[in-house]
């Protein structure tokens, strides 16, 4: 009779959305839309609105263009376009609910200065309830997306690709428009600044303060936290878990997107030692550090040149030192390197769809396990989880079908070797020695996107995931309240249904709850697989868009459910016991999985119940979340590197999926993976009077 008793979800519905979408108002999105990169031209906001409504059929989405590339004109157009998307015949519709937001694209050159990207999402659309201007991140991001953008395309490209000259000219206009906006004066309240200047904040705390000066309380959503392409090695969550960085304002975290999964902690580190004395760690069976692989590359070249083994070992050692010292962008010290040279170095080998160069110290699990004891009351991150696409082509909710990787992922299509050589120039010289440059040399070199191993990242890009909210109504208020309660979950793309509740008392405590109990917690997880998809688009799509537009925008494939669901094959429970003193080793506090519960072989979904019998005995707070695993299905870039391994599990050769001419456009680079839904955690403390 448990099942019947547990039926109490009647008052809520699950709504699916995407809170991370870019149009060509973003610098990188505009760049990727250029013909040299096989782009389809500009992707305006109207595309995103139509895509959400007719292609992916999601319930809500948010525009989050990079603040650093915004201008007063673009911000006004963003707000107006979202209102147009939302309103029909003068009243707000609820078929697709769009939100206004921007991305604070912070990147620090060193671990101490790095905070990572945060999306800022506003609930309402009225002018007075929106920021007067998007607030950018100071430093590297402003330089890369605002001041140093000409390095993205060599000037000669516009001349060579004369047929598309207009597009390159538009890009130059884009850059100049951004640069023409003056910086806002410092030391003035954000509320009092004029709306036609560029405002930036250097830290999350400063960003939140500036928004509060405008009496705004938007969602601040960290995302892409483990992305190693811009995260300096050794960066960790610790410096953001301090009162001045306002961790309590970051209620929700984006656990996964089309740029990779940030969930899992691993005990490896890209670089060890201190900032002033970085050391390249030795490889293990689980992890090959990129700095170590850099040494191997130089050593192999050296031996090929016939130099002595001792000399080559010495050069390898020096290479490791220099690349470890540089931290981010160590590959730039190896002249003539190609993406294949790096094998699987820098990568999490057993993570689910990991981010490129996955950085474990900024993973979600690490963040949940650490505690700041500097205040009277210990501080912890208490995030709810969502996923997103982080699509830069105005396509919210791309993860519904594994089709057209060049439209539905961030892969860059480069037409030919001619253009590839001009986009990612590779030196024909392959010297057997490292470039002896310092971190400062690299930072002052004018390199921006080139530092990010953009070509090598291509095969790590997937279609991304979805945010799901348990909402009391299909409305802006309903969605916002669910986010505020953290009664939300993430999926890696498919539209899975998930409930996770603590049920030891008479009242259900849904996912996202923070509870204090005096008995062992008992949980129930219910999960239902997503519907298998039919080819093509439903009639509804053609009622709203012409056939040509369906083809162009949706690639002729829409969310189109059949009557059969995928099976949920198991439920995994992750238990994290946040530090109770500073000496505790985080890797011992994360139990992943703590439980793995099989599901019956049926298509009706899966329901499991379990108790943590040690909770009272252990006498310490614990965080629990559920991961519902669906049967394996084909996924674009499901296996990023497609390594050939030796008997010891070492990667001998990679076969990645590039976006360029080397891979047939019709090859979707599919591998079967077990898609999943992650519940938000339930945070439990033991009652003190017990």
């Amino acid at each position, binding site marked *: 009779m448990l099942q019947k008793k547990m039926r109490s979800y009647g008052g809520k519905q699950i709504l699916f959305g995407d809170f991370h979408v870019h149009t060509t108002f973003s610098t990188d999105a505009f760049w990727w839309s250029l013909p040299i990169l096989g782009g389809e031209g500009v992707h305006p906001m109207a595309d995103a609105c139509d895509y959400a409504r007719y292609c992916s059929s999601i319930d809500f989405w948010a525009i989050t263009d990079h603040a650093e590339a915004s201008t007063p004109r673009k911000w006004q157009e963003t707000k107006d376009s979202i209102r147009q998307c939302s309103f029909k015949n003068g009243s707000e519709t609820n078929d697709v609910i769009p939100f206004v937001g921007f991305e604070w694209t912070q990147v620090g050159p060193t671990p101490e200065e790095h905070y990572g990207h945060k999306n800022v999402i506003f609930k309402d659309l009225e002018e007075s309830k929106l920021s007067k201007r998007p607030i950018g991140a100071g430093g590297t991001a402003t330089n890369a997306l605002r001041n140093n953008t000409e390095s993205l395309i060599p000037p000669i490209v516009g001349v060579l690709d004369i047929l598309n000259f207009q597009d390159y000219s538009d890009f130059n206009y884009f850059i100049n428009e951004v640069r023409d906006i003056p910086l806002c004066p410092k030391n003035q309240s954000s509320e009092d600044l004029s709306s036609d200047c560029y405002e930036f904040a250097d830290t999350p705390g400063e960003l939140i303060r500036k928004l509060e000066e405008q009496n705004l309380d938007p969602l601040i959503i960290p995302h892409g936290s483990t992305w190693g392409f811009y995260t300096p090695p050794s960066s960790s969550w610790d410096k953001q878990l301090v009162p001045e960085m306002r961790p309590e304002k970051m209620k929700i975290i984006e656990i996964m997107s089309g740029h990779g999964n940030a969930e899992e902690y691993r005990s490896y580190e890209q670089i060890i030692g201190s900032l002033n004395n970085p050391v390249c760690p030795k490889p293990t069976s689980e992890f090959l550090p990129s700095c170590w692989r850099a040494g191997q590359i130089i050593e192999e070249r050296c031996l090929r040149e016939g130099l002595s083994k001792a000399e080559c070992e010495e050069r390898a050692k020096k290479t490791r030192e220099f690349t470890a010292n540089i931290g981010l962008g160590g590959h730039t010290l190896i002249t003539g390197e190609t993406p294949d040279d790096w094998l699987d170095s820098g990568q999490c080998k057993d993570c689910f769809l990991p981010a490129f160069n996955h950085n474990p110290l900024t993973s979600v699990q690490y963040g949940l396990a650490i505690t700041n004891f500097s205040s009277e009351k210990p501080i912890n991150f208490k995030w709810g989880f969502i996923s997103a696409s982080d699509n830069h082509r105005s396509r919210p909710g791309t993860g519904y079908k594994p089709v057209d990787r060049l439209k539905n992922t961030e892969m860059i299509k480069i037409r030919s070797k001619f253009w590839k050589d001009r986009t990612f120039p590779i030196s024909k010289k392959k010297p057997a020695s490292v470039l002896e440059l310092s971190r400062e040399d690299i930072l002052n070199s004018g390199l921006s996107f080139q530092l990010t191993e953009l070509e090598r990242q291509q095969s790590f890009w997937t279609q991304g995931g979805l945010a799901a909210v348990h909402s009391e109504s*299909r409305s802006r208020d309903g969605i916002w309240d669910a986010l505020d309660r953290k009664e939300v979950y993430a999926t890696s793309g498919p539209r899975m249904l998930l409930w996770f509740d603590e049920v030891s008392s008479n009242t259900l405590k849904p996912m996202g709850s923070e509870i204090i109990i005096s008995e062992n917690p008992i949980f129930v997880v219910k999960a239902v697989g997503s519907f298998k998809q039919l080819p093509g688009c439903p009639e509804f799509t053609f009622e709203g868009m012409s056939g040509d537009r369906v083809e162009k925008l949706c690639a002729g494939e829409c969310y189109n459910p059949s009557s059969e669901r995928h099976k949920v094959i198991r439920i995994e429970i992750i238990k994290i016991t946040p530090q109770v003193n500073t000496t505790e080793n985080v890797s011992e506090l994360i139990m992943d999985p703590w439980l793995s519960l099989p599901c019956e072989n049926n298509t009706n979904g899966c329901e499991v119940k379990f108790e943590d019998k040690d909770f009272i005995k252990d006498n310490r707070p614990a965080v629990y979340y559920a991961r519902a695993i669906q049967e394996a299905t084909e996924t674009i870039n499901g296996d990023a590197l497609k390594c050939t391994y030796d008997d010891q599990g070492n990667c001998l050769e990679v076969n990645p999926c590039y976006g360029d001419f080397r891979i047939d456009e019709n090859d979707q680079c599919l591998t079967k993976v077990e898609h999943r839904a992650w519940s938000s955690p339930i945070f439990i403390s033991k009652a003190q009077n017990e």
Partner: protein
Amino acid sequence: MNNRLILFFGVLLGLFFLLYSVIIPNDKIEISDAVVSVNGHPIYQADWDLALQALSMNKRNEITEEDKSLVLERLIDEQLLLQRGLEIDLPQTEGMVRKSIVNSMIDKIVAEGTLFTVSDDVLIEFYQDNKDFFSGHSEVHIKKIFLEYKSQSEDEEKLDTIRELLIDGEDFDFVEAEYGDYILPEIPNMLLPIKKLKDYVEPDLVDIILNMTPGQITSEIETQNGYVFLYMLSSIRGEERDFQSVKNEVLSEYERRNDELSLKNYIEWLRNKSEIIYVQ
């Protein structure tokens, strides 16, 4: 004789045969085709041939004279059992027999009333009169009872109980709680747009829901995992759609209503020619 005269006699001859076939009973012709008469009821050569044909499909060797004789005897047995069944009033006393006859009658009446072609003008007029109906539901509040497949007899028994309770006006939630089986996902207890309903209910069932009206409860629907009864509590109508985009739905609805009308008229005719006495 001129052509007009030939035509006149031809028409006259035709009318004669027509009248003959209507007025004179054709029992004699039938009897002459019969191979056996069982209590005055004929078993025709055609019936026998059909049974032999069925036998031949399940038999490797050729049909023998002995087979033919055996089949005929079985047909006689069947006729005797049928007559006995009618004699002891099985159609009135056995639910399955009764249901089968009633269903067959309904099919027959509907088939006789089927419209072969409906002009666009008729459909447009019908559409104009029922615009609201074809605007579709924009939001619906749906509840369901799910019954997991078990054994046929167990399923039938439970289905009968549920049907009877629902027909008697029993509360849907009560019937669901008492007799429904648990299945994920539950449909949220609120108005949902059709698009959202598709996250909870298979698209095949959503197609059925689109044609329901508030207050309506379906009979059991077979799905992949079991039987489902759907109940539409309420709905909000959507925007008006133009005729061409809903023409197929208009035709289908027109035919459905025509079928209902045929049945209604037939039953009315039956009632008129019958003596119905309300005892209490």
